[in-house]
């Protein structure tokens, strides 16, 4: 039974500036379910991309040994032909094609050289759907099915490609409880018929219930490998977070208390495109001069919570209330949120925060053009004055305020984004992943800026995937898991282990 099917030997993969994988070794036995766990950015997805050939040979060092042979997969097609199929979090289905067209797209059944055998395609599709226990009409368009059923179509597609090793990247992240249970049971069924599965997951309870063995990654290295009988949630969490929190966080005087400036009361957000609640009964409080952290894993609904408060109701149907400075407000657009003194520094500064084709001074003033204009006509000397003062105060390193944003480093772009929002004179600042993708030196500068703002009476809501940052900077912490608020800690109570446990409920 314990025959090795797949081995990845000392895989090292370098991205510009970071080592994404450092001497990683993975060992998977035939017919088992192997789980890979780790924090965001630990290297799980990169490892699977190396395995499935998305990062081809030459971009990494180390060997992939599959069924006793060294393989160099060059692209997805190569790995699929050997029987390794990856199912990504973002499903690769065509919503406007039918179920049977989707199952055989890319490896169509053909009559002779070039005619598609649709009759056989439909028969085969039915057979594979039965195997995965999916009871839908094969003529249905995939886009009309729920996410859970779409996932099963993906698995049926994998089976039709004679899959030997099935890789699933967070398969249950978007599923509800019933669908998740269904999927896990299916994996157990497939195991009986000899299919090996590798599953990446954040949900430790799931992992423990299903895994035969687990590999734990942290910062691109393997920190532990555990077998079925040794699995223990606390131990796994310890391995996942086990890093010392250095003193990279500037000190600020302890929080003394103040009035509530922002409160949400049973705030719910229903995502119209995803068809489910992304924020569920959120009740958070933010006091004057306080830094409150929102912790949770990627996709837990943190950004959605921020956007719901910030009034981006285009995508969400929002119910419940938001109270700002003891006043119930109806935040139905970003401009009304800005008027109520709320600012939102986006996690994706390139897509949602800044206009890269424009200059620093144009970006900084964009959210408050009224302040630099009279009767709708812009005052450019005032615009330049404003830009100069923020470039100075936030120490943005640039040859000139007329530099276009795309020419700045990530850290400096982030400071421009913060400057842009400070210019709206908010008293509540929402920072979404304020230090993502920027170097350590700039991180420290941004933490210093946060402390300065708090000293001036600003209240800050900080979303972060980096636990050390949450622990090092926040006075109070809410933990969110799948849209639901699962815990609240003061900075004294909080530990990385406690947060991780509540984030992976």
């Amino acid at each position, binding site marked *: 039974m314990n025959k090795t099917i797949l081995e990845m030997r000392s895989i090292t993969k370098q991205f510009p500036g970071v080592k994404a994988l450092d001497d990683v070794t993975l060992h998977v036995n035939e017919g088992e379910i192997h789980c890979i766990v780790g924090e965001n950015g630990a290297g799980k997805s990169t490892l699977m991309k190396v395995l499935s050939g998305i990062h081809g040979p030459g971009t990494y060092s180390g060997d992939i040994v599959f069924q006793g042979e060294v393989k160099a997969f060059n692209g997805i097609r190569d790995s699929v032909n050997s029987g390794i199929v990856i199912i990504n979090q973002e499903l690769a289905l065509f919503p406007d094609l039918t179920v049977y067209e989707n199952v055989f797209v890319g490896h169509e059944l053909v009559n002779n050289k070039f005619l598609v055998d649709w009759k056989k395609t439909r028969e085969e599709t039915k057979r594979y759907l039965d195997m995965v226990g999916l009871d839908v009409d094969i003529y249905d368009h995939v886009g009309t099915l729920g996410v859970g059923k779409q996932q099963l179509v993906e698995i049926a597609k994998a089976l039709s490609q004679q899959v030997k090793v099935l890789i699933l990247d967070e398969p249950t992240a978007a599923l509800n409880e019933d669908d998740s249970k269904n999927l896990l049971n299916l994996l157990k069924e497939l195991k009986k018929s000899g299919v090996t599965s590798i599953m990446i997951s954040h949900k430790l309870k799931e992992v423990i219930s299903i895994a035969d063995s687990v590999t734990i990654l942290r910062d691109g290295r393997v920190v532990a490998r555990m077998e079925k009988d040794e699995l223990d949630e606390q131990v796994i969490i310890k391995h996942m977070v086990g890093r010392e929190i250095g003193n990279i966080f500037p000190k600020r005087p302890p929080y003394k208390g103040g009035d509530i400036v922002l409160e949400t009361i049973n705030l719910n957000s229903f995502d119209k495109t995803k068809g489910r609640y992304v924020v569920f009964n959120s009740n958070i409080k933010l006091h004057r001069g306080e830094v409150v952290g929102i912790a949770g894993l990627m996709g837990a609904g943190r950004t959605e919570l921020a956007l719901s408060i910030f009034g981006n109701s285009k995508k969400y149907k929002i119910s419940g209330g938001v109270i700002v400075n003891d006043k119930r407000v109806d935040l139905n657009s970003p401009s009304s949120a800005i008027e109520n003194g709320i600012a939102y520094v986006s996690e994706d500064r390139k897509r949602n925060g800044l*206009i890269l084709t*424009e200059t620093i001074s144009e970006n900084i003033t964009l959210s408050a053009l009224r302040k630099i204009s009279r009767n709708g006509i812009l005052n450019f000397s005032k615009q330049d004055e404003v830009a100069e003062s923020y470039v100075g105060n936030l120490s943005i390193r640039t040859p000139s305020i007329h530099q276009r944003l795309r020419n700045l480093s990530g850290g400096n772009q982030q400071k421009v984004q913060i400057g842009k929002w400070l210019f709206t004179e908010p008293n509540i600042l929402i920072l979404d992943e304020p230090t993502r993708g920027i170097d350590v030196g700039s991180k420290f500068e941004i933490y210093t800026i946060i402390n300065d703002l708090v000293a001036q009476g600003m209240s800050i809501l900080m979303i972060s995937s980096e636990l050390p940052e949450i622990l090092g900077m926040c006075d109070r912490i809410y933990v969110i898991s799948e849209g639901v608020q699962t815990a609240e800690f003061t900075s004294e109570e909080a530990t990385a282990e406690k947060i991780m446990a509540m984030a992976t409920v």
Partner: protein
Amino acid sequence: MKKINPVLQYFLKIISMLRTNIRDYGMYIALVVIFGVFSIITGGLFLGPVNFTNLLNQTAYVAVLAVGMTLVIVTRQIDLSVGFLGAFLGAYIVVEVENAGASVGLALITALIITIVIGFIKGFLVAKVRVPSFVVTLAGMFIFKGMLLLKTNSTTIPATHEFFRIIGVNYLSSYQVGPFNLLALILGFLVIITLAVMSILRYRHDKKVGIKGNDLSMVISKLVFLTIIIGFITYTLAAYRGVSYLIFITIIVVIVYHFLTTKTVLGRRIYAVGGNPDAAELSGISVQRIIIFVFISMGVLTMIAGLMYVSMLRTANPNYGISWELYAIAATYIGGTSANGGVGKVINSFVGAIVIMSIQNGMKLAGFPSNIEPVVLGAVLLLAVIFDIYTRNVRSIDLVGVHYAKVKYNEEFALARNNYLEAKKALKVVDKEDNLKVLELEFELMKAQGQYNQIKDRIRSSKEEEFVNGV
């Protein structure tokens, strides 16, 4: 280090400026080339007072459409319906005045209301209902074509009212000074003075707040160049009959829209929406409202263009409106507006319209068969966009710095170049069977090439102040 010869320095600076801002100046250079070629072919007739005035009159309606189209394309949309909408609105005004006996004022106001409502509907469908603008305006194209046929009853209707004659044919009246029209001279003079004052003020402001802009010598050179161009246009117009109402309206539209796009809050928001709609929305800008505004503005300009056209030809005709939108879109792209949104200048679209109409007018004047003209126009459009893509990522260059660097790194450069050539030669003569040797030499070549490129890059990116302040 030896100081550089000031005359040489001046020319190096001019060329640096041209090369660094080639995207902005490319079109003007193209225009000068086109003007030159047609002048030679037609023996100077092309740039003569009569033809040049006619050229500008013919350009007017395309230029007005191109100005509106710039905003549409900057916000990542398109409007295919402006041709037939313009022709319809022109016909509407003519029919109301000539056949229904309405006053000119009433006809203009109702036409304005109609076009605003249509613009709102187009914008609403695009922004709120999220129908692609291509489809909305394609449908509009059919609808307005039909409305044009209905309004004119498929017949030609003469526009005899005095109002149409004034707009379409008349010139702003004024005294003659010798052979010259005084008003044209005054207008040209005012434009030159305004430009001079503005660029000097800009220079002083930049200097005061410490922005590194152009040198004074460059500012003055630019100004001299512009003065010559505007002076020439002024002279040509004044030598014929002065400024026509068509030209006057066009200039007003260009100035208003230039001001709107560069100096106002609304303008900034339009460009922000085009540059990054998601970021604009999260910055508190209502993307939907901006897009609706842009379509309404397009509608108003379409009405002006339609009025200009029927006035110029003194008739309303069911065959008007064909390809107007294509000329407007082409002018916008020739003017360097980006199809990816967020980038584009109203003034450049105006010049793009002149480029297009110059080709049309010049080829006719030179006696080319009229069937060739679309081929040439298409080729010019393609070349303009290819040029734009090719020059998208030009790095700034400082030839004065390069000059100093060439002197300073002369020996290193010669050495690196020599090594590179030697390595290349060595690889050529080596025995191809000797794999190990070939490999070794290829490695040597790569190394030499790398060093050669490094020194070339260092020279290429040198700046004047590195040398002047260092000495």
